[in-house]
């Protein structure tokens, strides 16, 4: 069990009820939305946040002012796929499917879908799907939008997701069939607005000479809002529309300002200029909690922080060196002391939220603990190093993004822990873009990864980390064979079991050391709260989750 009550998932174990929920949702309109929200709220959790929604109701809100920490320069996430791009896109556009509160895919523009063979997916368009001006969505629009998403020039950020697609065919007036080159269960997350598809119309794109998402073209979609104003890197304003199949959202106008400086964002909240600040900096969480009339909500966000070794670069080509460092990582202390408990010591590449659907919250943690759960033990680290090619230690460096203060702090602690062993770690702080260059580089034998999965697919990060271009440069035939099975296995339980086995086998060689699974925090005016605030809240239409406290 995790130490912090805030980290315990508020979501009930996914059981057979989720299968039936999918059917319920195949209805339309607000009932479906209510079902979606309601189904996720039957949590028995008793954390303070969960309790605070008890007296909250869904009420008409004229304007919700939101402060984002990062800015957008294009509204189409294919062009610019920062996490905040997804938050805006989730209100304006839709894919064929969308995740619910616990990350189970639900119908969006498709009223239903079916996997008819290991490589074939058939989506049926809902009859009441309309664009924000009331024009009905056709299957041709869907096919055109998939074409845009596949195009590496138009959608450099998401095209890779469609690389395994063999064909996209109109198989009926309201049906599209997508055929893959080879089986890949994770593909289900492809046609999702939280990942790699936003349906727009061919006419709209062509009338704008192929441009999309810029201030002059804006974006045209099927979601509960339309964009009324957009100044790149400054603000975006959304207005509710009455054309969404899911009904009318309670918030009429959403005004989003991009305020990069955290202190300024706090002053803006203190002044009441913004009602909500999404993704606040965790090291400022206390300051936010101290801000007048403001509460902070925490939720796991499927993020992973861990060490990567480039296993071909000496001295990290020596398993004893890697294991020595693993023994010197005090993961529990990092979480308790550096993160103030806002996180959870990690034992695997997959986060618990990604497999809670099959194992339940406690079962997920238990299942993941078999991957790599070495205790903090400096004596054992010393013994391992003594067996290595560098028994007296060595000097190495690590590049850390200056936007990751907690990672930097963790490496400081690690540095002190291994110094008596003769291992000198030089910490080099750098802009985030330079840090990208350290990933998978032979010049940086010791590196780290801070990764937030976009999808709910438990294999998202593993297929990269344990695949051909993984940042550790690590290959193992047994692991490759297991990951192949993961790609093809359609039974969620068997798939998760195989995935965890692949990670366990790989981690015997310690190419990676999971450190912690992270949380995201959002500050919100006391007047409001967010229902079932969780890992998937902002990647599906999220304003219906904003409740007013009574």
């Amino acid at each position, binding site marked *: 069990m995790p130490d912090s009550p805030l980290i315990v998932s508020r979501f009930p174990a996914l059981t057979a009820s989720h299968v039936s929920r999918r059917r319920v949702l195949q209805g339309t309109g607000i009932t479906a939305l209510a079902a979606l929200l309601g189904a996720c709220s039957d949590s028995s959790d008793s954390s303070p946040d969960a309790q605070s929604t008890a007296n909250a109701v869904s009420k008409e809100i004229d304007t919700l002012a939101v402060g984002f920490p990062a*800015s957008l*320069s*294009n509204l189409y996430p294919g*062009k*610019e*796929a920062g996490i905040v791009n997804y938050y805006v896109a989730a209100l304006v556009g839709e894919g064929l499917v969308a995740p619910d509160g616990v990350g189970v895919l639900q119908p969006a523009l498709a009223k239903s879908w079916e996997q008819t063979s290991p490589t074939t997916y058939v989506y049926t368009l809902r009859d009441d799907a309309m664009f924000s001006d009331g024009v009905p969505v056709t299957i041709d629009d869907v096919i055109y939008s998939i074409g845009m998403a596949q195009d*590496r*020039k138009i959608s*450099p*950020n998401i*095209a*890779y997701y469609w690389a395994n697609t063999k064909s996209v065919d109109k198989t009926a007036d309201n049906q599209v069939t997508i055929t893959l080159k080879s089986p890949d269960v994770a593909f289900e997350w492809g046609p999702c607005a939280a990942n790699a598809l936003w349906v727009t119309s061919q006419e709209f794109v062509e009338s704008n000479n192929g441009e999309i998402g*810029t201030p002059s073209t804006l974006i045209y979609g099927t979601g509960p809002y339309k964009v009324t104003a957009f*100044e*790149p*890197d*400054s*603000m975006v304003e959304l207005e509710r529309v009455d054309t969404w199949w899911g009904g009318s959202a309670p918030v009429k106008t959403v005004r989003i*300002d*991009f*305020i*990069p*400086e955290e*202190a*300024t*964002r706090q*002053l*803006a909240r*203190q*002044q009441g*200029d913004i009602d909500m600040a999404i993704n606040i900096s965790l090291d400022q969480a206390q300051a936010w909690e101290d801000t007048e009339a403001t509460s902070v909500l925490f939720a796991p966000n499927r993020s992973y922080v861990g060490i990567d070794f480039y296993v071909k670069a000496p001295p990290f080509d020596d398993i004893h060196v890697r294991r020595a460092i693993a023994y010197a990582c005090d993961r529990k202390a990092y979480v308790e002391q550096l993160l103030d408990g806002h996180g959870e010591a990690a034992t695997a590449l997959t986060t618990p939220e990604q497999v809670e659907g099959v194992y339940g919250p406690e079962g997920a943690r238990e299942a993941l603990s078999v991957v790599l759960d070495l205790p903090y033990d400096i004596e054992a680290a010393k013994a391992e190093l003594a067996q290595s090619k560098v028994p007296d230690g060595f000097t190495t460096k690590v590049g850390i993004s200056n936007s990751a203060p907690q990672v930097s702090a963790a490496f400081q602690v690690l540095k002190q822990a291994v110094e008596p062993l003769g291992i000198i770690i030089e910490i080099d702080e*750098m*802009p*985030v*873009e*330079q840090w*990208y*260059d350290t*990933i998978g580089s032979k010049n940086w034998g010791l590196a780290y*990864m*801070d*990764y937030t999965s976009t999808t709910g697919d438990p294999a998202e990060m593993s*297929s*990269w980390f344990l*695949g*051909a*271009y993984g940042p550790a440069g690590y290959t193992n035939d047994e692991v490759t064979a297991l990951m192949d099975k993961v790609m093809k296995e359609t039974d969620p339980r068997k798939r998760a079991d195989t995935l965890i086995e692949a990670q366990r086998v790989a981690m015997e060689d310690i190419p990676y050391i999971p450190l912690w699974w992270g949380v995201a925090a959002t500050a919100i005016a006391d007047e409001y709260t967010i229902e079932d605030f969780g890992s998937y809240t902002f990647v599906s239409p999220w304003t219906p989750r904003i409740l007013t406290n009574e």
Partner: protein
Amino acid sequence: MLSQGSLLRFTLGRLLATVALLLAVSFIVFTLLQLTPGDPARNLLGPRASSPDALAEIRDQYNLNEPFFRQYLLWLGGVVQGDFGESIRSDEPVTALLANRVLLTMQLAAFAFVLTLLVAVPLGIAAAWRAGGAIDRGVTTGAIVGVGAPSYAVGLLLLYVFGVKLDVFPIYGSGDGGLERLWHLSLPAVTLAIGVGALVFKLTRTAVLAELDQDYVAFAQSRGLSRHQIRSMVLRNAMLPIVTSLGLVFAFLFGGTILVEVTFALQGIGSLLAGSVTFKDIPVVQAITLLTAAVIALTALAVDLFSFAADPRVRRRAAA
């Protein structure tokens, strides 16, 4: 006396030198960007699975696979035809990306400049006129704080006092134009003006003091000229160093808005430059540095032309 022809020759010569300077700046910045670590294609994809093919394709799209000199020449060829290329980060044409931002930064710099001019110069004159007096001591002490205080801290302090506590100015953003824009830019402009105003104050005070020490002042006093007459003589002579410093101040303001823009969430070229440098968004960085260099060079030219008009000694030197 200087003929119109030699003034024209002087101006043309300076303009040609400016073009040469801009070429040199563009080449140096381009080289420096190549030397900094990081890969724009990698930055575009972010920390996620990326095959060497996908990276190569993005590099191809932005000519990043070409040899260094060819990359520079391709860029320069576009610029000569008025095409500054497209931002790697947002895929927008650089000219469109800069259009709105340049206006905002210009407005901010101009506002701060006017504030500096209206407050620091008169205070500098008054302080010099009564050197050692209460105004002099008070403002000089304040100026030391003004020069030393980081604009980031001053900005936050102003935000807290005038934005939050007194609630008279907005906390962030640039407003929708007109008076609202002016209102939004007030605190950022004051923040900028505090730093450079302190500098201008000190320069003005020094320039006026230096003139007051000249023999002609003592001579004028002994001849019984009125304070008003003496003051206009002194100010006219002190004007040249003051105007020169003001020219530099404007150029500095235009290129030095980064911290203030970030603090007040203003989307000018400063905040864009900061993001673009770390991203290695080469076309955007090139365009902004060129623009800033051009503003600095042209301001310097304007200051020199002003000296021509204002100071007969300069005219004589140029004619000789």
